[in-house]
């Protein structure tokens, strides 16, 4: 598959790299996660409509 075809595909081609398993269990963005938790602490999930 050419790069152009890959780029135009809506379904992403996912390549599994076992090297990335080293990140498992780590939080790489602690400040962002803390911010998200703070912002969502009092938030209610929206009631989503019946999916089309």
């Amino acid at each position, binding site marked *: 598959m050419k790069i152009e075809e890959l780029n135009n595909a*809506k*379904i*992403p081609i996912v390549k599994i790299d076992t090297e990335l398993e080293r990140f498992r269990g780590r939080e790489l963005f602690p*400040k*962002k996660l803390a911010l998200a938790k703070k*912002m*969502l602490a009092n938030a*209610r999930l929206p009631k989503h409509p019946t*999916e089309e």
Partner: protein
Amino acid sequence: MKYPRYEYQTESELHFFEFTSVGIRGNVKKIVQYSRVSIDNIYNLAFGDYDETTDQINDQIVTNNGDSRKVLATVVSTVYAFTGRYPDRWIFATGSSEVRTRLYRMGITNNLSELKKDFLVYGMKRNETFEEYSIGQDYQGFLIRRKNKDISL
């Protein structure tokens, strides 16, 4: 998004994605992470530059590699990949600064019609309530969930 994007790699649970930004400042490794928030089924989306020498992330840096649109398109592609595996999970995102949040808002606005084909898209207002995403609103965060569960990897 129909913009060009980078190829990326991920691990078996699709919580970490890695790709390389190639531009005027050279090759910059980027990491995208989906982290579970304390509320069930909500995952925070974050991404930033990965420094291999320190094994640390810098999500405050402005890389200025001249490919921000391609980077954003790549991140959106990971959203498709992640929600393809976990279609019932919500994804929350906000910027590390007001400027970045505005940048993400612009990206969503510019691609809203296409995004809404596949996702429910909500904006978080300053009073911490969500509403269906509307152009022109000053949202401080974004929440999406996959709409079409037939999308698969």
